């Protein structure tokens, strides 16, 4: 059971506060006590070898995975639990949905809705979840499409787009909910190498606007240039955490050095 919060952790300046987060799949323990703090307006890149639990941890942040122990607060609220009279009550699906609406998520495999056009993909949740009038939702969607450089593709179906274009639509779709926090789960890992740049450019633009972002990635260049801090995970724990220059130039731990030796 997640432990109750202490006052130190409910500071408003943190978008994400995690302490001792644990998660297992069957008998396999994927997260063994993860600690992390993300300040509003910052970009945190989570690096690490595959199987280190970084994607699972990211998915815990919007309750796509349920944590089994520890404490996870996103946007000042416990994820998936309500604290009342010294007890934690598991939330109903509708309450979890309300929390998720404020958290944007971008997936490795894009997950655009294939039966809807690009525009329909973007306006679906603002209209259906937020109750925004259709006309206004379309206007906002077109502004977002312009931002990701895909105005001409508004009426195209996702299948007709390249991977890079699909991922940019997915980013626009997440932004349409006006999230306070954006989670990126290896957003460029499924892309052809020549398409990675266009997606990273959009993300870089978002960071420059001051969006709070947690990015699980293998793009070391992005982490170094755009990240405010770098978190290195291995074996289900945070092994090292620091500014990009500290981490890339002077890794403190042997495991981080070994990892960087392989990927750089």
């Amino acid at each position, binding site marked *: 059971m997640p432990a109750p919060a202490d006052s130190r952790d409910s500071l408003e300046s943190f978008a994400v506060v995690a302490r001792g987060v644990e998660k297992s799949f069957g008998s396999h323990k994927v997260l063994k006590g993860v600690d992390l703090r993300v300040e509003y307006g910052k970009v945190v890149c989570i690096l690490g070898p595959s199987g280190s639990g970084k994607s699972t941890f990211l998915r815990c942040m919007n309750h796509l995975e349920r944590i089994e122990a520890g404490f996870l607060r996103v946007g000042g609220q416990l994820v998936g639990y309500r604290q009342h009279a010294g007890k934690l009550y598991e939330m109903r699906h509708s309450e979890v949905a309300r929390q998720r609406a404020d*958290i944007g998520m971008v997936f490795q495999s894009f997950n655009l809705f294939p039966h809807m056009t690009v525009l329909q993909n973007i306006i679906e*949740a603002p209209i259906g979840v937020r109750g925004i009038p259709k006309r206004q939702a379309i206007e906002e969607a077109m502004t977002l499409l312009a931002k990701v450089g*895909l105005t001409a593709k508004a009426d195209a179906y996702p299948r007709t787009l390249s991977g890079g274009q699909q991922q940019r639509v997915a980013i626009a779709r*997440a932004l349409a909910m006006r999230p306070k926090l954006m989670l990126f789960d290896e957003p460029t890992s499924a892309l052809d190498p020549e398409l990675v740049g266009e997606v990273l*450019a959009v993300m870089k633009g978002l960071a420059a606007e001051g969006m709070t972002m947690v990015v699980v990635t293998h793009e070391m260049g992005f982490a170094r240039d755009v990240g405010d801090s770098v978190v290195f995970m291995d074996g289900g724990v945070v092994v090292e955490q620091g500014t990009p220059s500290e981490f890339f130039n002077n890794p403190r731990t042997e495991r981080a050095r070994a990892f960087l030796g392989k990927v750089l």
Partner: protein
Amino acid sequence: MEVVPLRYYGRWITALALGVVLAGLLVSMITNPRFKWDIVAHYLFDDSIIAGLMMTIWLTVAAMGIGIVLGTAVALMRISDNPVLSNIAGGYLWIFRGTPLLVQLIFWYNLSALYPQITIGFPFGPSLGSFDANRYITVYVAALLGLGLNEGAYMSEIVRSGLNAVATGQREAAEALGMSRFRVMARIILPQAMRVIIPPTGNQLIGMLKTTSLVSVIALQELLYSAQLIYTANFQTIPLLIVASAWYLVLTTLLSIGQYFVERHFGRSDRRVAAAPDVAIESGK
């Protein structure tokens, strides 16, 4: 250089051989007086045949309607996290898919023998009302219960396989956007599952059209029973079976054409549009 296309002599030979056989069959059908085509023509638009045809169409539509609604509900129950619902759905499937439809039809027809008086209420508690089974479980009700409940079991498996065919990432993406469970199902999962559900449902519909002929055993006057009533009186068995078959063929042909258009509608996001050059990106860089 001149290209000499491959010549398919085998095709010519098989076409010729089968053509001869078919022509022989056709000639025999026309010239054999026992087919009695004049009687077929006489009864094709007979009032009682047309009435039977209407009953067949009505039964097909109503039973499929019950089957689709029930099947969708049972499929959703089956995949539900609620163990009570999921097990009830499993039990329903077990019984209605595990016994012959013919037996089920006769069972419903004879329900009044088992429960002459049907009372709605709580077990051992107050009753909310009661009705006479003999009066209300008519052949129509028995036929609809039998066909509909049986179809519901098969439809639920079709719907369930359709729901399972939608990638898990779709549900996650929709939930990450804050959509409610109902909305995720209604707007994201079901429309995508439709493409998997529609083709076998078309088959079920065509199957149902012919399966309605089974209710002739409980003396409901659908197409086959109407034909049977005529040939038991005038002994023109073969011509009247041809009349019934002709109508079944007409209906299945129409349904197949309809199925083609419905499938095309639900597959529309699959058709690629001509790729337009991505001008916007270039100017955006």
